[in-house]
Structure formats: structure tokens, C-alpha cells
């Protein structure tokens, strides 16, 4: 009975001690803090890992060159485990506790959409490297992105289906639980139907589904000439395998959500001859891209950077450029500088931030050929 009474002050004292130990460090004036939230583990870990590596490389280069505004950049990275519900919490923590001046993240649109309102409410600029759903930047005037958006990507893919694949009868398999997939599917539909194409089957699945045989059997019955799968690589690889097992030999094609080495390791032969659109190709013969590829390989044991890595790299550089032009660590001034980014040359091309805080950039279409990604064509914005 008296035990808790004796213990309580001790616990309180211990608690206070712990609190003081954990209290956010007062911002060290010699560094500037940038927060990053990414899917470093989990279902879409390939996205987070790639963009994180690109960002790391950019920060390292910036710091080697003396940092920004005479301060070294300190990157605080947090993992959301590819889970819904984590990104907002992490964004809150980075802003409130770690006092970051800006946020970098995410690749997946659904998770950027979770963090964006937090950043907007706190008036902390957020730059998404690769979220293509238009809604992300519509959240508010503090949210930016350095990649193209799905109305462009969906249109480009719809045109590609008719011009390159010569497919007029296409089946669509959309993930209903991903903002990215639903959006891309919608813009594809609009353009494809407008160009006189026919959507012969419109099937749905949910994220973390593993059995797609039912949908694919229905698609097979509709005899399409190609199948549009605007999803993420984990599901796409399984869809491709199950489609081939059902005897569907027509090409599958999709968007930048396919961009990951896992597409090849899980998909194997099944993804051979499939196409997807993305932000850049490491085979682009420009000097900027080749230097980036070389530096990236040197730092990450020979790994070739994919589009998410390139965008992660560009997002950090665009942000650093804005901080430099703002001449201040005031988030509102950084925001204003970001909004006037014009003619920034990165590895994914020229970045001009428009009135809707989006970048308009060319897309490239790649094909899976002999277990590798091969360049097919470039689509101008």
C-alpha cells in the first residue's frame, strides 16, 4: 500500500530526468535541419531506399562544398514502413520536435497526402520527390514536387498504347486503395477513350492483395490487346506472373510505380516485354546524368540509380537552391524561393515550378528486355 507512495516521487524524478534528456536539442546554429520521411522498409521499400540514397548523395555533395548559407545540412530521416497512418505522425515529430526547416518526401502519393496537411498547417515547406497525384500539391501553398503529374503521365501512356502498342482494346486493373493508382487510371481512361480506344474490362484490386486470378480471368475473357496496370511494383510483379500463368500473353504497361529492381526479381520472365513510363533513364547520354550515375555507383557499391534515386537527388538540390536564394532559414522565405524556382537543371531534366507548385518534365518509356530496363522513347511535356 505504501509502496506506490514511496515509488511515485522517484518515478516522477526519473521521468523528469528522462524528459530533460530527450528534450529537443536547441537548434545548433552551425547546421540546418531538413527532415525526410520515406518508406525505408515494408512493401514499397525500394522506393524509399532509392530516393533516400539519392537524397543522401545530394546532401553529402552540398556539405562537401561547404553547405548552404555557410551551414552544414543535417538530414533527419524517418521510416514510415510503407504503412498508412505513419507519415503524418512522423511529419509532426520532425516539425515539432526536431524543428526542421523543410521536409522531403514521399514517393507514394497516398503517404505524401497524409503528411502534406501537417506541413501546410505548420507552414513548413514540403518537397515531394516523386508523388505524381495532382492532389498532393493541391493541399496548400507550402507543398511542392519536382516531378511530373499524373494527368501528363496518364495521357502519355494512353497515347503510347495506341501509337506504339497499336492497342485499341485495353483492359485496366486499378488498385482502389492507392491515390496514385486511382488518379493515373482516371487520366488514362479520359485520354484513351477520347482517342477512340475501348476499355474492354475495368477491374479493381486492393493493396496487399496477392490473388489476382479472378480479375485476370475476367480480363482474359474480354480479350484485350494490352493490359494497363497503374500500380506499385510488388503487386504488378504478382499480377504479371498470374497473367502469364493464365495464358495472357499481351503486354502489360503502367506508370512510374513499376520502377524498382523487385519488379524483375519477383516478376521474372513474366514482366518481359512489358512497358512503363518513368522520370528518367540512367542510359540518357547527357553529361549531368552520366556524372550522377558514376557518383551514385561509387557511393553505393555499384548500384545503378533508378528514377526514384534521381528524383530524391533533385528534390534535395532544388530545396538547397531555394534556401540559398531565400538567404534565410525562415520557412516562409524558403517557400517563396521554392515557388520561384525556374530553370533549375537537375538529373531528371529542367525543373520549373509552376503556379500549382508542380514541375513539368518529360517522361521516358522503358521496356523490360532480357531482364533489364531498356529505353524506348521520351515524351515531351
Amino acid at each position, binding site marked *: 500500500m505504501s509502496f506506490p507512495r514511496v515509488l511515485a516521487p522517484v518515478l516522477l524524478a526519473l521521468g523528469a530526468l528522462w524528459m530533460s534528456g530527450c528534450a529537443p536539442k536547441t537548434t545548433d546554429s552551425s547546421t540546418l535541419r531538413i527532415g525526410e520521411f520515406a518508406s525505408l522498409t515494408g512493401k514499397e521499400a525500394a522506393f524509399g531506399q532509392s530516393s533516400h540514397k539519392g537524397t543522401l548523395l545530394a546532401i553529402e555533395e552540398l556539405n562537401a562544398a561547404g553547405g548552404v548559407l555557410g551551414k552544414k545540412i543535417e538530414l533527419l530521416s524517418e521510416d514510415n514502413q510503407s504503412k498508412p497512418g505513419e507519415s503524418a505522425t512522423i511529419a509532426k515529430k520532425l516539425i515539432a520536435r526536431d524543428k526542421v526547416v523543410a521536409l522531403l518526401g514521399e514517393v507514394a502519393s497516398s503517404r505524401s497526402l497524409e503528411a502534406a496537411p501537417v506541413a501546410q498547417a505548420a507552414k513548413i515547406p514540403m518537397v515531394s520527390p516523386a508523388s505524381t497525384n495532382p492532389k498532393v500539391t493541391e493541399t496548400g501553398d507550402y507543398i511542392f514536387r519536382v516531378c511530373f503529374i499524373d494527368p501528363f503521365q496518364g495521357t502519355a501512356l494512353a497515347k503510347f498504347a495506341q501509337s506504339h502498342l497499336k492497342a485499341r482494346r485495353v483492359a485496366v486493373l486499378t488498385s482502389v486503395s492507392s491515390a496514385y493508382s486511382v488518379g493515373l487510371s482516371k487520366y488514362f481512361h479520359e485520354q484513351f477513350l477520347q482517342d477512340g480506344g475501348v476499355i474492354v474490362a475495368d477491374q479493381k484490386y486492393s493493396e496487399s492483395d496477392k*490473388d489476382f*486470378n479472378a480479375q485476370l480471368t475476367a480480363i482474359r475473357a474480354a480479350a484485350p490487346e494490352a493490359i494497363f496496370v497503374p500500380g506499385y511494383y510488388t503487386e504488378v510483379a*504478382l499480377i504479371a506472373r498470374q497473367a502469364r500463368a493464365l495464358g495472357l500473353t499481351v503486354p502489360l504497361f503502367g506508370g512510374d510505380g513499376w520502377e524498382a529492381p523487385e519488379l524483375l526479381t519477383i516478376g521474372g520472365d513474366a514482366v518481359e516485354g512489358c512497358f512503363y513510363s518513368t522520370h528518367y533513364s540512367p542510359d540518357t547520354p547527357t553529361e549531368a546524368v552520366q556524372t550522377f550515375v558514376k557518383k551514385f555507383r561509387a557511393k553505393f557499391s555499384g548500384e545503378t540509380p533508378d528514377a526514384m534515386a534521381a528524383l530524391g537527388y533533385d528534390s534535395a538540390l532544388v530545396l538547397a537552391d531555394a534556401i540559398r536564394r531565400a538567404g534565410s532559414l525562415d520557412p516562409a522565405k524558403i517557400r517563396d524561393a521554392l515557388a520561384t524556382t525556374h530553370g533549375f537543371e537537375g538529373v531528371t531534366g529542367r525543373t520549373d515550378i509552376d503556379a500549382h507548385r508542380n514541375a513539368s518534365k518529360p517522361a521516358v518509356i522503358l521496356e523490360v528486355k532480357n531482364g533489364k530496363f531498356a529505353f524506348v522513347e521520351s515524351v515531351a511535356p
Partner: protein
Amino acid sequence: MTEFLQQLINGLSLGAIYALLALGYTMVYGVLRFINFAHADVFMVGSFAGYYLGRLVPGGTLWGGLAVLAAAMIACALLGVLIERLAYRPLRGGPTLNVLITAIGVSLLLQYSGQIIFGATPRTFPQLFPVAQFHLGRVGISSNQIVVIVVAPLLIAGLQLVVFKTRMGMAMRAVSLNLKAAQLVGVNINTVISFTFALGSALAAAGGILYSMNYPSIDPLMGVMPGLKAFTAAILGGIGSLPGAALGGLILGGAETFVGGSQFSTYKDAIAFGILIVILLLRPAGLLGRWTAEKI
């Protein structure tokens, strides 16, 4: 017609896996009157055991596949016994609710230690058995689907034999009927309960490997959805009844596949669970379950 037959095959192979998993739920419930929520995570461990053991044998051979299957089943049987010994036995005799909550705890423990040990990134499950694709006209079936459709009923039949034809099975039924009375007539209930967990967990491991052969991307949270479906299947068929669990699995797999292939594919889970509600309204004890007054 072709489409119907194809969907039937898809539904059967999915349902067979649900059935295997549902047996584990129903068996533990039959003997101990509680739902072992950690069962779905033993299924996940079985699949990871297959992933790691699969590297030790030459891939795509029959004997290699069978060896991995057997080894994973033994490993999970031991895990099941261990879980029962450490988590559930100390609570025996207490209210069922305590064990139920502990089961949820064990489930979370396995999921999150799985993320630490195996990593949260999905892995590609190796090709264990030789694969081939058969076509009857436009109806395609893969050897993996055939393995599932053949192995699952064999295991279920084997289980039925164990429960109804062996002394241990008789002891299991005795414990299920009345734990105290069985103890009084000399049944060693600890052995019987350990055996039940071993058997159920071995079936979960087999289910995990068969599931991963068809859907070769595995991660530590992979058990959650199939576990929920199999639990539903067990309730649907009448919890405590072995044929009921098998029937429930097939109905659920079939419903999910036929809805998934229709224009209502968005609602496939909603409809599968809707069927459960309808059946429970009409037959509260499930399709093959016997209604008994709950003794509290």
C-alpha cells in the same frame, strides 16, 4: 463456360488454403474453447521457414520441395507447442478472455519480431517444386495450383483419420467434450493439448508454403489477411467442426473469386464477409456446427 471453369479452379485453390488454415483455428477451439489468433502468424513463420530452408535444397525438385515442406511443418509444430507451453498453459483454468487477449499479444509479438528478424521488405519465395502449366482448351491450371488442390484435401483427410481413428484422437475428442472429466479418467491433458497445437501449427506451415508457392512474395505481415479469412471460414463452417472448416474455406475462396472476377471486384471482401453475416443470422452455429449452450 471457360471463364466459369477457370474461376472455379482459381476459387478452389484459394479456398483449399483457407481451409487448411481454418482447420487450425477450429481444432484449438474444439479442444480449448478459445481462438488462437497467433495461428495466422505461425502460417507466416512457416512460409519464412520454407524461404530459408528452400535455399539448402536444389530448387524445383520434388524431393527437395517435400523435404522443405516436412521440415517447415516440424519447425512450426515445435513453435506451436512452445507458444502453448509459454503463453497459454500458465493461464489455463482462468477466464477464456485472458487467453484470448494473450493470443492477440502472441500474434503481435510474432509479427513485429518477424519484422526485426526477417526485415519488413517483401521477399521472393523460391521455386520449391517443379513447375508446369497445363491447358485444357482455354482453361489453364498450374502445377502449383494442382499441388494445393491435391495436398490440402489429403492433409484434411489425414487429420480426420488422426482425430477419429487413433488413441490420441480419442483423447482429443474426450478433452473437447469435457476437460475435467477427461482428466479424471486418466487422460494426460497436457500431452493432448500440446499435440493439438503441434498438429494445427504443422498444418499452418503447410498452408504457408502452399500459399507462398502461388503468391511468391512474402513478408512478416502476410498472415493477417489470410488469417482473418480463414477465421471467418472456420466460423462460417461452424467452429469446432473439422469438415465445417474445410467447407467454409471453399465457400469463402469461391465467393471471393467469383465476386473478384465480376464488375463488383471492389466489394469482394465486403461480399465475402457479408455471406458470413447472412449465414450466422440463419444458422448461428455455422453451417455444420452444433449449437450448444455456452458454459460460463
